[in-house]
Structure formats: C-alpha cells, structure tokens
C-alpha cells in the first residue's frame, strides 16, 4: 500500500515538474511574448542533457554534484508530509509543518552551497545574496505555518487539513497565503526573490552550470515549486477536501492553481536590490506576519 502511495506521489511529482515547466513557458504570453507548447520543456531538457558539464577551477566537487540532488530530495521530503487524501499522507508525521520548515531551511543551505561550491565569482555572489534574503524569509514562514496550526491545535498536516472542514484557512487567515507565497518565491528562486540567480549576476549560482547539472537544478527548482504548492494547498485551501471529486484530484487541482499563482507572481513582480528587499523583509513583512499570527490566534480562541 505504502509502496503504491509512494509511486503515486512520485508520478504526481514528475507530472507537476513538467506542468510547472510548461507554466513557465506559457507566462511570456502575458507580456505579449510567445507561449510555448507543452512539449517545449521536454525538448529543452533533452538539449541540456546532451551538453557537456562545464568545469571550474578548484571547485568543491562533492557539494557541486550533491547540491541539485539535495534540492530535489528536500522537495520530495517536503511533499511526503502533505496529505494526499483525508487522513492519508506518505509520511504521517505528527510534526508535519516542522518537517516542512526543516526542508525550507535546508533548501536555503543547499542553494548557498550550490553557489559556493563552483569556486567562481558570480555563483558566490548569488550564494551570499540568497543566504542574506533566505534567512529572514524563514521567519514569516514559521509564523504563517504556526498560525495555520492554531485552529487545528496540532502540528500535523493531516489535522490541519481536517480543521478546514467548515472553512478554509484562506478565509480564516486571509494574509496567510500571500505571505506564504513570498516564502514560495524564495524557495523556488523566482521573480522578486530570486537573489540566487538573475541576469544581473550572469545567472548567479547557476552561472557555471551546464548540461546535466543545470538540468537537475532546474528540475529540482520545479520540484520545490510542486512541493511548496501542494503544501500551500493543504494548509490554506483545504488540501484534498472538496465535493464530488476524489481527494487526490482536488489536491492536484489546488496544487496546480497555487503553482500558476506562484509563476504569475514571479513573473509580474519586479525584483529590487537585495538591501531594499532586506529592508522590506525585516521592517514590513516580519511585523506583518507577527500581526497575522496574533490575529489568527485570537480568531482561533
């Protein structure tokens, strides 16, 4: 049973990765660009896979090879605690949101190592820039998830989904999802919070990557997008709860919705300088998320 469930989650993850890649290639249409077809991601990946990997001078080989693998693994671990149907998750952790929080923190480290290990200037700038932004983003993430745990009186995601039978957390805690989207943009290295990469530093942490390594990194970013969206769907949109259709289908639909939202937000919001973003994170977002936690606590009481 659990083997079947694991296989199902993995297939869903693979489909989600492909869907996310397609969303990314559809998004330019919003700005009058050309949208690509559903097969475009596969073509791009195949082209990447037949290219050679670039070498750098005196890299940390172990971390360079392992960083994309860790990123992918952390996305999979984060996804494993999300309930796919009512009362059914791959990993029945009583502390599901803490598991997700750990994955978040380790993802920031993985991105840092990805930029640090090639021993090259641009990736290193990206690594430190991202670490500086990623750390303060952990705090709103924590407050938002704790706020979602309050009505459920449990840290388990199954209990959090169960507590949304009457009304979704999106309704009870309207600030939760927007704040959590900031976290998602950071974890998936997108748009306004993509301080690891970006054209201003020639691709940042990925500046020296090519071939299979770059492919795996892109796939891992998309896998994180899927895991983040599934978790956001479970925490704020009731996850597998819904009429008529079976639970996993509802979860898949809501996950796809959050994925599209994240891709859109990454596309439409401009990126500012790291120092200005740090100011926004510490001075505005942190107190906002704390107020969100306080209000949610009072509502739950």
């Amino acid at each position, binding site marked *: 049973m659990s083997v079947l469930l694991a296989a199902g989650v993995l297939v869903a993850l693979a489909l989600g990765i492909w869907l996310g890649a397609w969303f990314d290639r559809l998004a330019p249409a919003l700005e009058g660009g050309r949208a690509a077809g559903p097969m475009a991601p596969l073509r791009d990946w195949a082209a990447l896979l037949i290219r050679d990997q670039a070498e750098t*001078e005196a890299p940390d080989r172990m971390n360079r090879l392992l960083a994309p693998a860790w990123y992918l693994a952390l996305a999979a671990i984060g996804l494993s605690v999300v309930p796919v149907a009512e009362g059914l998750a791959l990993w029945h952790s009583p502390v599901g949101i803490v598991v997700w*929080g750990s994955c978040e923190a380790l993802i920031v480290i993985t991105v840092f*190592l990805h930029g640090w290990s090639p*021993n090259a200037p*641009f990736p290193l*700038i990206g690594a430190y820039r991202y670490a500086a932004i990623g*750390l303060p983003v952990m705090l709103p993430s924590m407050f938002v998830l704790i706020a979602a745990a309050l009505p459920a009186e449990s840290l388990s995601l199954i209990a959090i989904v169960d507590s949304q039978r009457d009304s979704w957390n999106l309704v009870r805690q309207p600030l939760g999802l927007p704040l959590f989207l900031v976290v998602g943009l950071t974890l998936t290295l997108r748009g306004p919070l993509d301080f690891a990469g970006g054209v201003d530093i020639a691709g940042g942490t990925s500046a020296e990557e090519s071939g299979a390594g770059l492919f795996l990194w892109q796939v891992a970013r998309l896998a994180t997008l899927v895991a983040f969206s599934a978790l956001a769907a479970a925490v704020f949109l009731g996850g597998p709860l819904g009429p008529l259709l079976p639970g996993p289908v509802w979860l898949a639909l809501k996950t796809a919705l959050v994925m599209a939202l994240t891709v859109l937000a990454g596309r439409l919001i401009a990126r500012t300088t790291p120092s200005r973003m740090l100011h926004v994170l510490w001075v505005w977002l942190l107190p906002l998320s704390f107020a969100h936690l306080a209000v949610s606590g009072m509502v739950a009481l």
Partner: protein
Amino acid sequence: MTDLAIILLALFGVWTGWRVFRVDSMVRASFALMLSFIATAGIGLLLSAPYIGVATVFMMAVEMLVMAIFMVMFMMNPAGLNPMSMVHQHRLSIGAGVVAFAGLGAAVLLSDLPDSPVAPGTDVVAQLGFELLGPSMLIFETAGVTLLATMLGAVILSSRQGRFGMADHGSRPPGLEPGGAPAGRRPEKGGGHGHGHGGHGGHGDGGHGRASDDHGGEHRGHMSDGDHEGHAGYSPDGAMGAPGPEHGATHRTPAKSEHGGEHRTAHGPGHAPQDQKAADAPQEDAAPNADPHAHHRKGTGHDGDDT
C-alpha cells in the same frame, strides 16, 4: 533495525564532528557540524521524540548558515587560505573535552535511563508542549532571554558604525606567507602610492600612532583613509583559487586590528590543496605554517581565539 540505524547515525555524527576540526574552511566546518547535529536529530526521531528531532534539524540548519556567514565575516582566515592554524589553545581544549566527555559519560552511566518503549498512540508532542510551558517554563524562558541577548550582541558586533568610528578602520588581512605582505587588493584610487610596493601597510592617517604597535616594522605601503573606505564592499576575486597580492578579497581597514575585522567577505571553497595540507598537519609539518604565532606577533594583531 532501529538499533543499527541509531549506531550508524551516532558514528556519522562523531565522524562529521571530527571533520569540523580537520577542515580549514569555515563554511565546511559549519556544515560538517550541521551534519553532526542532523545525525543526532535522526536519533531523536528514532527514539520517538519527533518534535525535538525535527526541530533540531530546523534550528541547526538556520543556525549553521548564520554561523558560516558570521565566521566568514569575522574570522581571520575563514577559507584556510592564509598560513595560520585554526586549531589553538590545545591544553585548554583538551582539558575541556576530557571534562565534558567524563561528565556526559557519567550522566549516561549513572542515571536511571528509561528502557520501556513509548506506548503507541501517546501524544508525545502535546506532552512536550505542556512540559515546556509548565514545569520547565523557567529553563525555557531563561534560554530564550539568553538567546535574545546573544542576538543583540551579534547585531551590535556586526554593525559597521559604532561609537568609536567605523569598525573596519585600519584593519588589514594577514599575509599569504608568514610575515608576508598583507593579502588583499591594492587600492585603485590610491594613485601610484601603494603600487610598486609589495603590498600595502593599511594604516589610516588617524590610526598611525595607535596601530604602529601592531604593525611592527612591516610597513609596505601607505594609503589614505579614503582609499580604504572605497573598498569595503564585495570583491569577487576572493573566490578565486589562488589570490595573489592583487587578487585578494575585500580589504578593509580598521585601526583596532585586534578586532580582526572583516577581511574577506567572499570565500570560495577552492583552496583544496592547502586545505588538505593544513588538515593533515595543522601546525607541525606544513612548511609555511611552522610557527603560526610568529605570524601573529608580526602584526596581524589577532590571536585567533574566536572559535
């Protein structure tokens, strides 16, 4: 099965903990320590302490990233690039290690450890919550206030502006060989003044008198304050494998060189050969490293006691 997993995790934790002291790179040391803690967290998870186990991973991941950044900012030699040993105060640390091992070992051997498995269905997370916010409230809050004070201290320490002027005024990085010219980029704005010398002395105008004790007879160039200020940024060169005198990392210039200062804000891992050498023979064999303290006496003014 669980026993085997616990043994393997314990061995992994010990091995990664040992690696912390064998690598010269502060980033590697931080994340080796993190792996050690994660192994401990895995043991906690297997011992039916899910919250403590997973929270350990979370806390340690964030903590070690902060630690890596702070060590790169503040340490004299965060990448193992300069010839100085990162292992110091041998007698004190051996003594502390023996005492800690004896104490913890005695605690394990002498205390009455529970051996009954947790009954299935026990809500251990809720029990832990009631314990933390009930009988153990005082410990919990004391730890919280202590951590808050530490955070404030860290913020104050890392602030460049201070009551006595800029924190990096007059500092300079250590040389690439014992007694050598300070590593770091030569000023671009300084005209010909700093050029043509082996490096630069890096004492500011105001700091001359005070700093001369530290500098010994090692002046190699002169530059004005303004030159230094301009370089307190980020230098991608610091990531290159073998920085020469012209390719060092960011050079900052505090007068109070005993504070170490932030010599390098940028560190790649790429000092593998030196790293290895220093790891194998931290003090005795590595030729340029024969007497790390001599290096200190010559005027880097930092006794390497931070970590």
